[in-house]
C-alpha cells in the first residue's frame, strides 16, 4: 500500500493528467465550478441522490463523479446520506408508481431552499418507459424540477456541466 501511496504522491493529479479529450473540458469546468461554488454557496452544496426507478445506469455515472478523475468534493459538492442535510435532490428514473410517495416524502424532508435536478432521459419525460402502466412519466410529474440533465445515462462530464448550470441559476 505504501508503495502505491508513494507513487500517487509523486505523480500528477488525475484530473489534469487524464488521457482523454474529455480531460480539458473537466479542467475547464472545474475552474468555473470552483469559483461559483465558493462565491454562491460557500463550498457547501449538499446533494441527496434519489433513484426513483432508474435502470441503475445513471447511478453508475453519478458514482463516477466521486472518482479521482472527477473528484466532485473538491468543489464543495458532496453527496449526503439524508435529505434533511441536502440542498439538492438529484433524481433519476421515470418515477415508478411504486416510488412516487417515497420521492414526495424525500422532497418534503428536504429543507428550503432546495433544488431538484432530474438526471437522465427517463427522469426528463419517462424516456423509453414513458408508455408503461407502472411509471408516472418523469420527475416533473411528481416534484418541481429546476434542471434536467439529459443522457442515457449522462456522462460524468455532462453531470458536472449540469451542476454548473444549476449553480448559475440557483444564486
Amino acid at each position, binding site marked *: *500500500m505504501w*508503495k*502505491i*501511496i508513494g507513487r500517487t504522491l509523486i505523480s500528477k493529479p*488525475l484530473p489534469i493528467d487524464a*488521457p*482523454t479529450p*474529455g480531460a480539458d473540458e473537466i479542467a475547464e469546468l472545474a475552474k468555473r465550478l470552483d469559483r461559483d461554488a465558493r462565491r454562491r454557496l460557500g463550498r457547501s452544496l449538499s446533494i441527496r*441522490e*434519489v*433513484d*426513483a*426507478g*432508474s*435502470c*441503475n*445506469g*445513471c*447511478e*453508475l*455515472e*453519478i*458514482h*463516477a463523479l*466521486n*472518482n*479521482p*478523475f472527477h473528484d466532485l468534493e473538491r468543489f464543495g459538492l458532496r*453527496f449526503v*446520506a*439524508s*435529505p434533511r442535510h441536502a440542498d439538492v435532490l438529484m433524481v433519476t*428514473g*421515470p418515477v*415508478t408508481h*411504486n*416510488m412516487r410517495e*417515497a420521492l414526495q416524502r*424525500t422532497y418534503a424532508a428536504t429543507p428550503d431552499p432546495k433544488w431538484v435536478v432530474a438526471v437522465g432521459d427517463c427522469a426528463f419525460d419517462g424516456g*423509453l*418507459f414513458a*408508455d*408503461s*402502466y*407502472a*411509471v408516472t412519466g418523469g420527475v416533473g410529474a411528481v416534484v418541481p424540477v429546476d434542471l434536467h440533465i439529459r443522457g*442515457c*445515462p449522462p*456522462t460524468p462530464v455532462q453531470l458536472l456541466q449540469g451542476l454548473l448550470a444549476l449553480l448559475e441559476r440557483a444564486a
Partner: protein
Amino acid sequence: MTSQSLLEFAEQGIAIEQRPWPRYRLNHAQWTDLAAGLGATDWTLLAVWGEPSEVHAAIMDETAGAIAVLSLPCPDRRFPSLSPVRPSAIRMERAAQDLFGLVAEGTVDPRPWLDHGQWPSRAPLGPRAASDYNFLPVEGESLHQIPVGPVHAGVIEPGHFRFHANGETVVRLEERLGYVHKGTLHLMTGKPVAEAARLSARLSGDSTVAHALAFARAVEAASGAEPPLRAVWLRALMAELERIANHIGDVGAICNDAAFAFMQAHCTVLREEVLRAAALCFGHRLMMDRVIPGGVSIDLDGAGTARLGELAASIAPRWAELYEVYDDRPSLLDRTVGTGVVRTELVRRYAAGGYVGRASGRGFDARRQPGYPPYDRLEFEVPVMPDGDVHARVLVRFREVEASLALVRMILDRLPQGAIAAAVPARAGEGLALVEGFRGDILTWVRLDREGRVQQCFARDPSWLQWPLLEAAIEGNIVADFPLCNKSFNCSYSGHDL
C-alpha cells in the same frame, strides 16, 4: 325463507346501523340461503354493489313495505352470485367484478362489463396490496425492528429492508422489492426486436451488455438469425469489459463499506479507465445498445484494438498490487472473513450463480455450461471458493478480473475479420438463452410472432436467485455488517423488479 318476511330473514344477520333503512351483515351460509331462496320470493332486488372486500344487495319487500341492505364480507373476494335467480344482478355483479375484483360464483355471465381491457390496472377500486402488506412476524424477547428504505443513504437503488434485531444481532431480515418496477416486459411485447432490444439493455444498467446479449441470443435462437463470427467475438469482448469494470467497482465499494477508502479510490480509477476505453472504442461508456439482435452495432477499429490491449496490460499489474493491499490488511480482513456466510447447500438449492454461487462452492458458469461461442474456443479460469463469506465473494471477483483480463487479450489476438451484423428474419418462433453476466447467469426467453415482433418475453436476472440468500447471509451477523454483506452480493433491484 318463502314464509319469512324480508326483515325476519335479514335479522338473522348482524345489524349495522344505517338510516333510514337497516343493513344486516350475513354470514356465508345465510347469503347462500338468500341466493338460493330469493327466486321463490317476490322480493325486489334494487341493487347489487361492492366495496373492496364486501358485497351488498339492497332488497325491497313490497308486500311488507320494507327495504334492507344485506351484506356479505368476502375477504377471499368471492361471493355466491344472485344472478341465477335475479337476472337484473348480472350486469351489476359484472361491474363489481371489474371495479373491485369481486368474483360472483355461479354467475350466469362471468364476462367483464365496464372493463374493456383499456384501463391501466384491473379492479381499480379493489383493495390496494400496498396498504396491507404485512412483514413476517417475529416472536421473542428484546426484539426491535429497523425499517430501512426504499430511499437508502448511499447512491444506490431503492428497496426496503426490514430488520428484526436483538441488540446488535440480526434475527431476521426481510426484503421488500418492486419499487423500481417499470413494466419493462410489457413495454417489450408487440415491439420489433430492435426496439425491444433497447429495453432489454435497460433492464439493469450495470449488466446492459449481458442483458442485451441474452436477449439477442434468444431472438437469434427463435428466428434462426446467425450473427457473424466477428460480432460473436466483439460481444464477448464487451461482456468481459463489463465484468471487469463491475467487479473492480464492487471490490472498491465493499472495502469502502468496511471503512477502507484507499481501495475504493484506486478501484474507481481503474474502473474509470475501463469506461473511458469503452467510450473511445465503442462510443458509450457502459456499451449500451452495442449488442443487438443479429450482431453488434459498432465495429472495433485498429486503434481501438490497440487501446484495449494497452488497457488490459496496464490494469493487470495494478490489480495484482491492489490484491496484495487487500490481502495484507488485517483490519480489513477482520471485517470480511467469516462475515455473511451462505452455505453451499443453500446456493445449490436456489441455483444462485455468479460470485454468490462460486464463493459458496457452486462453480456454475453459463460460459462453460451450457456454453456459447466464442467461449467454447477460449481457455479461462472459473474460480470457486468453499467458504461463502464476504471475503470469498471478494476473492472470486479478484480472480475473475484476472481471468477476464486474460480473455480480453486472447479475444483481441484472435478477433476474426468480417461483417458485424446479420439481418434477423421476420419469423415466428420461440428462443431461450443463458448468458453469463458479471453478476451471474441471465436467462432470457422470447416468443416472436410472424412479423418478427416480440409477442412475449421474460428475462430472469441473476438477482432473483441471489436476493433471497442475502436474507440468509445476514442472519446472526451484526446490523453494522449489513452494508458489507449487501455490497458483497450487489444484487440488482432494477433487473429484479423488471
